[in-house]
């Protein structure tokens, strides 16, 4: 029996049947007629001039259709990859924005920079031919670290970017912060590294370009989180294809985490190559190739200071960060360590003044851009490590110092000194609930038990707040965004009353087909199984900005809600006409239109049917059909937050940090589907713990090579690294989104790194340890323990 499944229910996900039976449709699964295969030849050098490229031998190989270089694309007037969000420096000047050709021109700037593209009848033929391309490189000195790249005499990556400084950016009131530090009784200072990460969604990237010459129609299938934005950026700015002649399809996509929310060179190259060659050209990234061509995340070096008064109240915060951009600016690269970072430095605390400066720097590494959390985990890590260190230094309990400085619930909406105004939240409620659930009271006993077994045990806490639901276009525009960040939804009611939703967000694991159907089911009273959600195809969906920044429900869901309002209004008009009643007397409730004070009523399917049989419609005031579209642009960011507590146990013999207990209490606003929300938090926490304990994109300073270039060396979190988590919601309602939702996709990744590292430091505190860099790998922890032992022996 078809039923309404509304807000707050956890139905089985609509998308799962195809996934559990092996019938998903990912880009690598797609075959097209007359399809050839392309592979990229990539630079083995971190920094080198390209003196010449000899493709003659490769071109003679069997099956080879073409070998393209950057010069070929330039000769065809192909443009560079655009940046979607520009920033300006302290001096008011815009960031340095050197060109980013899809295939390198004259110079390579990181190991993995594309040098040529070979197209052949098979992948094997293309691979064999690529090995025969002769590139004459003149290697240049390179630099992989942001701090090092700013040193006098560092290798110059661009002639037009002196000192490799893309932008010297700041936010906040420097003078007020200086004055506050003068009055402080205690100043806590820390140096942090937020290490480079590789996002590694399980599906490697892939792209297929196709050209239909008879119709002048281009199609790109791509592993993207935002197909409409790729159509816009690639069509208008790179290849010069008019919007109406370019279709971008992002079908099932196997995870994104930000890695797939950029316009990548490979998308433009396959689309362009297909135009040159006719038919379709397919490229599927190998994992090892992905390590040196997917945009990376994080990579900050930070110095931070917190000024406190005698009571441990925060007076001011000062932060200086060096942010590594890699060899080129990726789509949102410069926005991440600036606009998505500094405005979160107030955390959930009252901090009267904050000043943050960020040096955004080019290096000879893979470009860095958004990765799950994107700027906000980095900010939270700074705040929560500072607070924990201050507590330790001043002898204040770690929970007490947080409570003492928290924004009181009654102070919301709360304007921070760094741009943003939090609309709602209950940080104290989250913290207290997490303390109960984590049995903080029982920790001392558990620590004693660990000590009896020769182990160190520590408990760490991190609160957090994030800004998501990207984004209010007005504010984003003021901050340098080069496009709006609204979302669109179209609700198409069929004559039967069944519904197809066309929405501009993209589902790559988040369960949109289920959650969005629940919203429509609730609003329109339509059975859950009679609703389908369509996304990911620019020829089907009107427009959209895609999925990232925990925006799908907040912005896309709100657009869908708004379109549902329009459907109800239109349905009431039709019903009013049929009932011969006044519109204001027609009410819609639980899937039925009725006239108040009468027994006249019609079901939603009856009105839907009537909409398509307009025999007696007053056509000048009532159009046939029942289909409505809405665009929604949020008025503010949303601010999910929460408190995470974890316990670790450390084996001093091996340095292994074992995550023993993890508790998360999160305020994500209204919850549509509790099962999906919990799943998002679980996955996010594991990615954050991955950063804290396991993952590290390591560059070799000498060679400029990425040393952690495969799963053999880049440590992915595995099932046996984790205990069962305790995750509970503690929601306040967002005051400005129509359903009160806040978003939940990034919460886990934002709250967890500091919770884990604070626990590790707590465990090692008896050894005099005050800070541990991420990842807290066994070797690093053993070195710390071993050195502290040596220190103790020497004393």
């Amino acid at each position, binding site marked *: 029996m078809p039923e309404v499944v509304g807000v707050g229910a956890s139905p089985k996900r609509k998308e799962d049947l195809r996934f559990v*039976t092996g019938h998903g449709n990912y880009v690598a699964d797609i075959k097209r007629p007359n399809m050839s295969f392309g592979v990229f030849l990539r630079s083995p050098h971190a920094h080198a001039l390209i003196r010449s490229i000899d493709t003659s031998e490769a071109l003679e190989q069997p099956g080879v259709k073409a070998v393209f270089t950057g010069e070929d694309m330039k000769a065809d007037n192909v443009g560079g990859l655009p940046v979607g969000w520009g920033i300006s420096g302290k001096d008011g000047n815009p960031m340095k924005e050197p060109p980013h050709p899809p295939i390198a021109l004259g110079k390579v700037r990181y190991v993995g920079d594309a040098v040529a593209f070979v197209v052949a009848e098979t992948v094997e033929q293309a691979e064999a031919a690529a090995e025969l391309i002769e590139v004459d490189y003149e290697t240049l000195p390179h630099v992989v670290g942001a701090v090092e790249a700013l040193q006098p005499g560092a290798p110059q990556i661009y002639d037009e970017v002196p000192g490799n400084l893309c932008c010297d950016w700041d936010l906040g009131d420097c003078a007020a912060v200086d004055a506050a530090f003068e009055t402080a009784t205690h100043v806590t200072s820390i140096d942090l590294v937020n290490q480079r990460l590789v996002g590694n969604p399980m599906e490697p990237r892939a792209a297929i370009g196709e050209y239909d010459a008879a119709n002048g129609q281009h199609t790109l299938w791509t592993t993207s989180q935002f197909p409409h934005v790729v159509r816009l950026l690639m069509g208008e700015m790179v290849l010069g294809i008019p919007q109406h002649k370019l279709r971008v399809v992002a079908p099932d996509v*196997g*995870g994104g985490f930000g890695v797939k929310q950029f316009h990548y060179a490979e998308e433009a190259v396959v689309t362009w190559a297909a135009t040159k060659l006719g038919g379709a050209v397919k490229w599927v990234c190998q994992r090892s190739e992905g390590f040196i061509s997917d945009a990376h995340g994080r990579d900050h070096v930070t110095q931070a200071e917190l000024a406190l008064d005698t009571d441990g109240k925060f007076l001011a915060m000062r932060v200086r960060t060096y942010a590594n951009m890699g060899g080129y600016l990726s789509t949102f690269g410069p926005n991440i360590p600036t606009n998505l970072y500094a405005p979160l430095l107030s955390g959930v605390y009252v901090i009267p003044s904050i000043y943050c400066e960020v040096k955004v720097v080019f290096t000879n590494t893979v470009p860095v851009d958004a990765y799950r959390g994107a700027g906000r985990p980095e900010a939270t890590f700074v705040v929560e490590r500072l607070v924990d260190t201050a507590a330790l230094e001043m002898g204040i309990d770690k929970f007490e110092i947080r409570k003492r400085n928290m924004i009181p619930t009654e102070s919301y909406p709360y304007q921070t000194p760094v741009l943003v105004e939090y609309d709602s939240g209950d940080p104290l409620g989250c913290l207290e609930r997490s303390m109960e659930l984590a049995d903080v009271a029982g920790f001392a006993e558990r620590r004693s038990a660990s000590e009896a077994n020769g182990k160190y045990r520590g408990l760490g806490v991190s609160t957090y707040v994030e800004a998501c639901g990207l984004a209010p276009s007005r504010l984003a525009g003021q901050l340098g965004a080069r496009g709006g960040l609204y979302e669109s939804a179209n609700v198409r009611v069929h004559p039967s009353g069944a519904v197809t939703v066309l929405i501009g967000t993209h589902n*790559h694991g988040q369960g949109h087909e289920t959650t969005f159907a629940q919203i429509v089911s609730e609003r329109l009273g339509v059975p859950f199984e009679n609703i389908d959600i369509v996304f990911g195809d620019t020829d089907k969906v009107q427009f959209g900005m895609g999925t990232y920044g925990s925006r799908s429900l907040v912005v896309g869901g709100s657009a869908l809600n708004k379109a549902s309002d329009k459907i109800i209004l239109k349905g009431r008009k039709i019903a009013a006409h049929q009932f011969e009643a006044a519109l204001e007397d027609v009410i819609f409730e639980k899937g039925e239109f009725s006239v108040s004070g009468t027994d006249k009523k019609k079901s939603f399917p009856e009105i839907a049917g009537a909409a398509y049989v307009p025999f007696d419609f007053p056509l000048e005031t009532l159009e046939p059909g029942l289909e409505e579209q809405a665009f929604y642009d949020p008025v503010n960011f949303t601010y999910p937050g929460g408190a995470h507590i974890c316990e670790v146990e450390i084996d001093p013999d091996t340095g292994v940090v074992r995550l023993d207990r993890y508790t998360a209490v999160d305020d994500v606003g209204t919850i549509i589907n509790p099962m999906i929300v919990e*799943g998002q938090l679980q996955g996010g926490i594991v990615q954050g713990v991955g950063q804290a304990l396991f993952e590290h994109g390591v560059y070799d300073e000498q060679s400029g090579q990425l040393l952690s270039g495969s*799963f053999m060396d880049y440590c992915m979190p595995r099932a046996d690294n984790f205990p069962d988590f305790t995750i509970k919601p503690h929601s306040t309602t967002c005051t400005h989104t129509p359903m009160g939702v806040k978003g939940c996709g990034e919460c886990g990744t934002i709250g967890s790194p500091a919770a884990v590292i604070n626990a590790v430091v707590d465990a090692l505190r008896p050894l005099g340890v005050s800070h541990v860099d991420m990842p807290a790998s066994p070797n690093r922890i053993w070195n710390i323990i071993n050195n502290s032992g040596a220190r103790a022996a020497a004393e």
Partner: protein
Amino acid sequence: MTITFTLNDRSVTVDVEPSTLVSELLRDTLELTGTHVGCDTSQCGACVIHLNGESVKSCTLLAGSVDGQELRTVEGLAGGTDDLHPMQVAFRDNHGLQCGFCTPGMLMSSIDLVNRNPDPTEEEVREWLEGNICRCTGYQNIVKSVIAGAQALRDASRGDDHA
């Protein structure tokens, strides 16, 4: 070379290059794209299938080596969309998947586990899945799914005993 093998209970004879991997044979030649390829170092487990009932990584297996053998892929688990394998049902019921890319490999590995160990503990499940990487779920609900799937299979076999 020509090879003949049983694939999802049907006999298949096909000409392959000796350097063809089973993952390529399945995906490119036989168009069974449920078996995924997520890495090139045999670590991620997205490509796991059954060879003679045991889970193996099809990206690290030559097509020539499966001549005369019995293979099963994720497409061969269900009788139809109304007749899912209990492990498929369990993954669906317990939200044991998000993007779906690792799911076929997770299912095939998990079924190999419960075939050998019908009542695995949480720890045994976590250890068994060492060769299957998931980036979405944090493994929490995958572990729950496998335990629920094992329970369902035990219940089903008890039902068979009564019959």
